[in-house]
C-alpha cells in the first residue's frame, strides 16, 4: 500500500504541487495524466526523493516518513523499496546492460554477485534482450536502452515501480514494443505508478486513472469512469484534445 498525503512543492515562486494526495493499493497500476506543468513528474520524483517536497507524508508498506524532514537513512530506506524508470533512460554509461541491471542488487542490496547475475540475466531475457548482456548503452537503440531501464527497475523487486513518461523520448515505432513490456510488468502484479500520455495504455492496463492539472488532482477513478464519463470540465477539455490528436495523427 502506497500513500502520499498532502504533498506541496514550489520551485522558486512557482507552486508546482499545491496539495496532492494519492493512494495506491498493492498490485494496482495507477496512471497519472495531465498537461505539462501539471506537476505529475514532480509528484513522482518526490516519492523517491529525487526532489525534496516542501511538506507532506509518504507511507510505503509499513515505512512512514515526513517528506520534508526525512533523514538520510529514511530516504535510503524508501529508495530501496522503490524503483524508477526515467524518460531518457539514464543507463549507467560506463556499465554494460547486465552490469546496469545488477548494480542495485549487488551494491545497494548486498546480494552476492553470482545470484545477482543470474537474476539480471533472467530480467534481461524477460524484456527480450537476452543477446545484449554485454553491450554498452551507446551501442543500444533508444528502445533497447529503455528496456534495460525497465529490467533494472524490475529486478530490484520493489514495492512500487515509478515510470516517468517512459515512452516520450522514443521513436514512434518503438513506443509499442516498450508499452508491451510495461504491460508485462503490470501483468506480474507489481504496484506501478505511471506518468504517461499514452491513452490507450491507460485504458488497457490501468486500474486507476488520476488526472492532474496545475498542481492538484482534478479527478480520479477507474479508466471507464474517466474516459467515458469525466465529471470535471477540465478533464473533459483535456481528454477531448488528446483523443482528437490521437485519431488525426498517422505517418
Amino acid at each position, binding site marked *: 500500500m502506497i500513500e502520499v498525503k498532502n504533498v506541496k512543492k514550489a520551485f522558486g515562486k512557482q507552486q508546482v504541487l499545491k496539495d496532492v494526495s494519492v493512494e495506491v493499493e498493492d498490485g494496482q497500476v495507477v496512471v497519472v495524466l495531465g498537461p505539462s506543468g501539471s506537476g505529475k513528474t514532480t509528484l513522482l520524483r518526490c516519492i523517491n526523493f529525487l526532489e525534496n517536497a516542501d511538506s507532506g507524508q509518504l507511507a510505503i508498506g509499513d515505512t512512514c516518513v515526513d517528506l520534508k524532514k526525512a533523514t538520510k537513512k529514511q530516504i535510503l530506506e524508501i529508495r530501496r523499496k522503490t524503483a524508477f524508470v526515467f524518460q*531518457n533512460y539514464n*543507463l549507467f554509461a560506463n556499465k554494460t546492460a547486465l552490469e546496469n541491471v545488477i548494480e542495485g542488487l549487488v*551494491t545497494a542490496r548486498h546480494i552476492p554477485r553470482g545470484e545477482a547475475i543470474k537474476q539480471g540475466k533472467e530480467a534481461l531475457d524477460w524484456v527480450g534482450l537476452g543477446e545484449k548482456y554485454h553491450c554498452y548503452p551507446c551501442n543500444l537503440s533508444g528502445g533497447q*536502452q529503455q528496456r534495460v531501464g525497465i529490467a533494472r527497475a524490475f529486478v530490484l523487486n520493489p514495492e512500487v515501480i515509478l515510470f516517468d513518461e517512459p515512452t516520450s523520448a522514443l521513436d514512434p515505432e518503438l513506443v509499442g514494443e516498450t508499452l508491451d513490456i510495461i504491460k508485462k510488468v503490470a501483468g506480474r502484479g507489481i504496484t506501478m505508478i505511471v506518468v504517461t500520455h499514452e491513452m490507450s495504455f491507460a485504458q488497457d492496463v490501468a486500474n486507476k486513472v488520476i488526472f492532474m492539472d496545475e498542481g492538484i488532482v482534478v479527478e480520479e477513478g477507474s479508466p471507464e469512469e474517466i474516459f467515458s464519463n469525466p465529471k470535471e470540465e477540465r478533464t473533459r477539455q483535456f481528454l477531448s484534445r488528446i483523443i482528437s490528436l490521437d485519431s488525426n495523427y498517422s505517418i
Partner: protein
Amino acid sequence: MDKLFGWERFFENIPKILPYLSVTFRIAVYATGFGVLLAAFIVLAELKKIPVLNPFFKVYVSFMRGTPMLVQLMIIYYGIPALIDPVFGTNINRGFSAVTFAYITFILNQGAFLSAIFYGAITSIPYGQTEAGFSVGLTELQTFRRILLPQMVRIALPPFGSDLVGLFQNSSLVFLIGVTDIMGRAKSIGAATKHVLEAYVFVVIIYIVISLTIRLLFYYLNTKLEYGREGVE
C-alpha cells in the same frame, strides 16, 4: 676560435647530466601525487559550495592559473622565509634546500590546474547518471565511486596528459632558484668548461623524448579507454 658545437664534448656530457634527471622526475611525481589530492579537495569544496573555502579556492585557482610559473617559484622561494622567519624565529633558507621550495610551488600549481580539469570533467557528466544511481538505492558515495568516477577519469584523461607534458616543461625553470636538475648541471658544466652548448642541446633532447613518450603513452591509454564515449543516447 674553438668549434661552437663539439661532438666529443656532447657525448662526454651525457653521463654527467643524466643522473640529475631524477630531480625532474621527483618534482613531477610529488607535484602530481599531492596535486591530485589537493585538486580533489578543491573540487569537493566547489561542488558542495562550502562557504569560506569555495571563494578562497576560486581566487587561489585564478591566481595560480593567471601568473607565470617563474614568478610563483620566486614568490615561494622568497616568500616563505619572509613570512615564516619573523613569526617562528627560524632561518628557513638554512633548513630547506632549494628543491623543497620547488616541490611546494609545483604541488600548489598542479593542485590548481588539475582542479580545473577535474571540475570540467565531473560537471560534463549528465545529472541523470547521478539520479539513476540514487534511484536504484545507491548512496551518494557509492554513486560517485561506481558511476561518476570511472566516467570522469575517461573524460579527464586527455587534458591530464597535456597538463603532464606542461608540468615537465615547467620543471625546466627550477634551476633559476638554484636547484641542480639537468639544466642546473648543464650550466655548471658550462661554467667549468666554458662550453655549454652541447650540454644545453642534450637537455633539449631529454625534454623532447619525455614529451613524446608521455604523448604516446596517453594516446595509447586514450584509445584503450575509448574516451569521449558518452553512453546514453
